[in-house]
Structure formats: structure tokens, C-alpha cells
């Protein structure tokens, strides 16, 4: 025993050490928000809001990059259009539309709830947003693929 003037019981030091902390999440602790397992509507909406937000930030820079091709003149841009109107790309556009709609409509919910305006209505707001978003997404997808 180390001499502290007080007799330590066996194992006292191990008992005094802080214990492990279980975090929900895949991997290290800062990913805890991302894990949808065992969570309900609000937790999953929050995770998806963040994922769509981060994806939209990446898209912002992608978009600025693509638009920079305009600087190189008409032929470069029109070449790009050929690629950008391919089915795969149009499909990605629909994914983008989903991201925008989810983030925007859930954002309305978060804004209202998180400012203390409608704190007990969070589920209703989610489903209302989902209904509006579903309709707009369907119309948008229809239009993107050239039928509108």
C-alpha cells in the first residue's frame, strides 16, 4: 500500500477509477447522434436532418464548382449538359430534391419547436411536413424526368 497515512482497502484504487461510459452509436462517441437504432421519430428526424444538411453543404460546393464551367464558354457548358441530362444524373437530382425538401420541411418543425412556439406538436409537424414533401417530391420527380 502506498503510504498516505490512511490504510487503503484492497482494490480501492480500481473502484475509484471512473467506469466506462456506454454511448449509443457506431464507433467512437461523437457518432452517437447518427445511430438510428433504438430511437424513435424525433431522434431519427434529427439524424436525417443533419445528414441532409451536411450533404447539402457538400452539394453547395459541388454546385459552385459545376457552375464554374460556365467560365469556360458555351461549348464546355453544353458538353456538360449532355452528361447532366443523363438518367443517372436526373436520378441524383431527385435525391437532391428529397434532401432539400426534408431539410426544409423538418427545418420548419425544428424552428417552431425549438423556439418554444409549438413544443408539444413535434410529431404532427413532422407528418404534416412529410405529406407536403411527399406530394412535392412526386411532382418534382415527374417533372425532372421530362414528363411535366
Amino acid at each position, binding site marked *: 500500500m502506498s503510504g498516505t497515512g490512511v490504510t487503503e482497502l484492497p482494490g480501492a484504487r480500481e473502484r475509484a477509477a471512473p467506469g466506462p461510459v456506454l454511448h449509443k452509436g457506431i464507433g467512437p462517441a*461523437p457518432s452517437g*447522434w447518427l445511430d438510428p437504432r433504438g430511437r424513435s421519430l424525433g431522434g431519427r428526424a434529427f439524424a436525417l436532418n*443533419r445528414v441532409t*444538411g*451536411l450533404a*447539402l*453543404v457538400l452539394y*453547395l*460546393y459541388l454546385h*459552385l464548382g459545376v*457552375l*464554374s464551367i*460556365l*467560365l469556360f*464558354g*458555351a461549348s464546355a*457548358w*453544353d458538353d456538360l*449538359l449532355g452528361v*447532366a*441530362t443523363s438518367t443517372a*444524373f*436526373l436520378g441524383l*437530382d431527385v435525391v437532391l430534391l428529397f434532401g*432539400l425538401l426534408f431539410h*426544409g420541411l423538418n*427545418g*420548419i418543425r425544428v*424552428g417552431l419547436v*425549438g*423556439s418554444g412556439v409549438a413544443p408539444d406538436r413535434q410529431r404532427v409537424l413532422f407528418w404534416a411536413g412529410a405529406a407536403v414533401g411527399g406530394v412535392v417530391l412526386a411532382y418534382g420527380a415527374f*417533372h*425532372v424526368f*421530362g414528363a*411535366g
Partner: protein
Amino acid sequence: MSVLEIRPRPERARGYGTRSARVWWWTVGTGIALLVLVTVHMVAHHFVVDEAGGLRTYDQVLDYVGNPLILAIEALLLLTVTIHAMLGVRSVLLDFDWGPRARRLVDAGLWLLGVLTVLYGYVLLAVLAWRA
């Protein structure tokens, strides 16, 4: 039995004065603005053009950007979306619990990134508007 203390009202701004409340207002405010601006942007660009996929050709883009009202809206959109994006990224990064010094670095870094993003976008818009 305890009695409610009568306290003098605080002099300084409290609710809005605290940083986090201001950040919240900016995020919500830009969010509301974006609901309008992004809708206008999407409709004007992609749902008004006849080409398949709703994408404009080079000349159509220049036509569009040549209109001063459109230019102003696009400029406002870029500014608003960059602010909202930087605040959103800040919210994600701040959850990592890196400490007050790191928090200041994150804030400075995002300010810089935001300013550069908006500047680049404005240069791009200016060049295209000039060509139009």
C-alpha cells in the same frame, strides 16, 4: 417558508445578448428566407425551362443572369445559404466538445470559409453578368 426575492431587473440584454440565442435566430431566420429563396431559385431555373431535365444552355444562363433582379436574388440566395450552411456545420462541430479555444478556432475558420465562398460566388456572378 421561503419567499420569492424581489430582484432588480438586469440592465444588459439577456435573451438576445447571449451568443447561442443570437446564433439560433440567425439559423432560423436564414432558414425561413431560404424556404422562399430556394423555391424561387428552383422554380425559375428548372421548372420554367423547356429543355429536358430543365437545365439551361449557356446562352439561356447568360440571358437569365443578365436580368438585374435575378442577379440580386441569386446574390442574396448565395449569402443566405452560406450563412445557414456555416451555422449548421458549426452546430455539428461543436458537439465534439473540443473546448473553448477550439470553439473559437472553429468559429474563425467557418467565418473565413463563408466569406471565401460568398466572394467566389459573387465573382462568378459578376463575370457572367458582364458577359451577358
